């Protein structure tokens, strides 16, 4: 069982995330897709660390810090989304155009 099989999983996850990010109109659904993309990257770090450099821990710690940063990013993003909802009464990205004109 090689490194390729793990990379296949993370590629499927990444492609699903990109598809969702491009096709969804709801900001919360887009945020969920971003979580998928970040998670795929995290898997790659851990897998490369384990299979190609088993005596070091760089990938392990990079994943650890990435998880912390993702938590911070999600908290801020949800604060912004709720604030937008309070002003626009909608989560649809097509309706968020107050600052356009």
């Amino acid at each position, binding site marked *: 069982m*090689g490194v*390729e099989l*793990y990379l296949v*999983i993370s590629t499927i996850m990444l492609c699903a995330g990109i598809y969702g990010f491009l096709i969804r109109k709801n900001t*919360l659904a887009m945020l*969920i897709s971003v979580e998928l993309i970040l998670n795929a990257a995290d898997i790659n770090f851990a897998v490369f660390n*384990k299979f190609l450099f088993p005596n070091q*821990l760089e990938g392990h710690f990079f994943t650890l810090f990435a998880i912390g940063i993702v938590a911070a990013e999600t908290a801020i993003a*949800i604060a912004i989304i709720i604030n937008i909802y309070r002003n626009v009464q909608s989560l649809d990205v097509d309706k968020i155009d107050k600052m356009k004109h």
Partner: protein
Amino acid sequence: MDITLQNVVFIIVAIFISVFSVLTVTTKKIMRSVTYLLFVLLGTAAIYFLLGYTFLGAVQIMVYAGGVVVLLVFSIFLTKADENLNIGIKIKKVLPILLTVLIGGGLIFFIIFTHNFLPMASTDAIEELNMKTIGFALVGGGKNQYILPFEAIGVLLLACIIGGLLIARKR
């Protein structure tokens, strides 16, 4: 690939993750989407456990399943997000996006399977990463030790708390 317990578990986890990550972005209700995302994140934790990174798997479950998903569910309850997610998506828009994703994914698969990776470590007996090693590496200041990012992420989380309060408070 011979049939060992590890391979069987890996295949089950792989199918689980693939199915649920596709369902996450195609389902109609946002509540279901978050639930499928939770399953994907738990599957990722299972992969970390399979690799022997048990601490990482525990962190993944705590932060994602315990923090991020709960945050998402709360924000869904706070907003009116119960309409159909797939409404207003036309086939004319789906096709180019699907094509982009499929071509990109095919390219990545091509690179993965034609690239010669470095000689790989044996995966027959993956041993668990020692907790003591992680602890010393996380709060040590020497080479290959990570006290600086550890402190930086603490400051980042503090800034995140203050920023979140400032953005979301009522005026």
